């Protein structure tokens, strides 16, 4: 009886102290192991301080998270923090009143913020054209080249650095009984990051950063068309396998040990360790030696966190505190090791290095190294509205290219035409 009473008192005391905390919410689009890591990080944040209590909520996929965030904002029920993926960045950044720029939020809360602390490849993607951080980079990835070590040994060739080298060694890989190349999500690999790795302009208006009005996508240039003519040529010669728009369908042949190279995400590293039973390694995604100035860093993939507007100062202070917590080297290294996403600050990268993590797992370093390669005029990022729909148009045309229904040049002209219609439509909504 006595015990119960004490317990009740103790409970009510804890309840009061919990009540005094400021509650903030975080909607995200991660599942599986990555979703668990989000819960772990939130718990670490809650344990590290008393003033704020953060609750993470999974909202399905990236697209579903964005859609439900938008719907919630329209009815005044938005969370404090919303995770938005790379292709949705333009949508949320163009809606200026919907978010508080991460940089302002952190400075207003009296915390420190240093743009230079972030690794070069991360700085611009979620920032405005002046470099101010609108979104807080969170889970960042890069498209890299995974390869089956056994396949290269059998074929007696070296992993390619450039696409020219790939053309030279591909027949040997085929001879050794492998499908030389597969790649997931060609929109990300062979268009967006074809642009960044080869330092090519992707859209007018400074890749879309300067203005929403009049931004046009640029994909009919000879280099972009050449990339896909080559892919088609390789597919016809059975040097490249195309398995539609699904991520997993293109990964499967690599996991089964049938394909020698798979272009995938640096974030796929953890999953691949479990799903493969052969030795694999990774290197930078190839570029074209023939294109002048190529070999630059890639765009950052993944997603960022946005602080939604319309919240009290106390809640915003908590959000700011959480953003600072996220960028601390300890949290970044923990996240990096558990998910395969790259660390986003130089300090976190140094810490992982010092701990000897990359001696154990050299593949984990490839993504961040690629993001730290020399930048070029067009490697900061791109900003195009309705971009998820433009990706859908590309996916449709790519299927048609590889089934031989349409010529590469014509396909890209369709993409440019429909893409520009979507961009013009977006400019109207934002206007």
């Amino acid at each position, binding site marked *: 009886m006595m015990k119960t009473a004490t317990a009740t008192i103790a409970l009510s005391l804890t309840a009061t102290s919990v009540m005094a905390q400021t509650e903030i919410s975080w909607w995200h689009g991660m599942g599986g192991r990555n979703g668990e890591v989000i819960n772990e990080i939130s718990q670490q944040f809650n344990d590290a301080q008393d003033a704020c209590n953060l609750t993470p909520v999974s909202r399905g996929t990236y697209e579903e998270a964005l859609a439900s965030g938008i719907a919630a904002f329209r009815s005044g029920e938005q969370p404090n923090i919303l995770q938005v993926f790379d292709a949705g960045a333009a949508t949320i950044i163009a809606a200026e009143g919907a978010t508080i720029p991460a940089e302002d939020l952190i400075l207003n809360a009296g915390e420190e913020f240093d743009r230079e602390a972030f690794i070069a490849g991360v700085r611009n993607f979620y920032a405005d054209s002046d470099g101010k951080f609108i979104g807080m980079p969170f889970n960042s990835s890069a498209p890299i080249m995974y390869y089956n070590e056994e396949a290269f040994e059998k074929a007696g060739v070296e992993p390619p650095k450039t696409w020219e080298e790939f053309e030279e060694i591909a027949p040997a890989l085929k001879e050794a009984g492998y499908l030389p190349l597969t790649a997931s999500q060609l929109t990300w690999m062979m268009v967006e990051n074809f642009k960044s790795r080869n330092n090519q302009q992707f859209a007018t208006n400074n890749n879309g950063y300067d203005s929403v009005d009049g931004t046009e996508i640029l994909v009919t240039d000879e280099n972009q068309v050449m990339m896909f003519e080559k892919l088609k040529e390789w597919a016809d010669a059975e040097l490249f396998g195309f398995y539609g728009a699904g991520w997993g369908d293109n990964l499967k042949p690599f996991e089964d040990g049938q394909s020698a190279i798979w272009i995938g995400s640096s974030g796929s590293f953890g999953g691949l360790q479990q799903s493969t039973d052969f030795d694999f390694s990774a290197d930078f995604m190839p570029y074209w030696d023939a294109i002048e100035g190529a070999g630059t860093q890639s765009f950052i993939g993944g997603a960022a966190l946005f602080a939604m507007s319309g919240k009290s100062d106390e809640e915003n202070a908590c959000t700011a505190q959480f953003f600072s917590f996220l960028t601390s080297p300890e949290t970044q290294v923990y996240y990096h090791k558990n998910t395969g996403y790259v660390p986003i600050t130089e300090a976190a990268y140094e810490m992982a290095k010092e701990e000897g993590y990359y001696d154990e797992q050299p593949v984990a370093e490839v993504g961040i190294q690629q993001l730290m390669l020399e930048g070029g005029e067009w490697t900061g990022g791109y900003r195009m509205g309705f971009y998820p729909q433009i990706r*859908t148009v590309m996916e449709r045309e790519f299927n048609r290219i590889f089934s031989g229904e349409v010529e590469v040049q014509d396909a890209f002209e369709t993409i440019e035409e429909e893409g520009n219609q979507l961009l013009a439509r977006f400019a109207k909504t934002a206007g």
Partner: protein
Amino acid sequence: MAETYHTGSARQGAILSRLRAWYSAETADPAKRVQFDRPLTPWLFLLPQLAIVAIFFYWPSVQAVTSSFYIEDPFGFGATFVGGENYADALASSQYLSTATFTAFFCAIVTALSLGIGLLLAVKADKVIRGAPAYKTLLISVYAIAPPVAGLIGMMFFDMHMGPLKDLAAFFGHDLRVGIDYWDTAVAVVTISVWKQIPYNFIFFLSGLHSVPTSVREAALIDAQSGWRRFRDVTLPLLAPTAFFLLVINITYSLFDTFPIFDVVVKDKPANNPITLVYKVYLDGFKGNDIGGSSAQSVILMIVVAALTIMQFRFLERRVHYG
């Protein structure tokens, strides 16, 4: 088992007569009319149903119509009135038109196949004497599978890497590439959608067959030797009300309820795979955040469905004989 058929057919009859009354605005026979003491009482009973219809159907419909005339940013900061521009954009888009064409084709073929096979199975099952319940239960059980699950099961068969149907097609010299080849994917969604719908039609046709009086059947037996002629001249006309009801239901099914099957088959990324108009509304609205354009498309869809329903009742129902 017989109980189930009975309830099924009663429910079907009720729906039919309600639809008929609604369309032809027949006034019920005064002698059969139930009288309430106070004029407000019937409304009180109707209120919950009316509230549900108003909140979940009329209100969103009005919203869809309103936002179809605007272009607005996703977060709702500003909406610009654009008149019929969203409609013009949708109808002028070649992509929209090819999706519409596919939808019409898809509806026709799914309805025809699932009605045809459902009827065939019902007629055959009706004749089975020994072990009839086992056959019937096996045929009906698929109805308990939810559409997304049906999609998943289907994709295990059609998977481009390890599906057994891929091997079967390869045996006949066809490289089945569901998810890459437009028509291969179409075959997959049609097959899964038909498979999912057959049990529903089967149940109703079977109960329809049960309601054909034995005396009529026996009389027919004297008149015609050929089983096919008896079926064509006697059974089929008596099944017409059921068939008409199922036609309406099946068209609605293939237009709307097949959404989860498409979602599973195209794996959230339609690329060049065939999709229906409903799926396109979802893509543009929820994935593309284009609220105005997506609303215009859903209003077009509403008009099409309304027109289709009216046409069915005007032209087809006249030829249906209710026993």
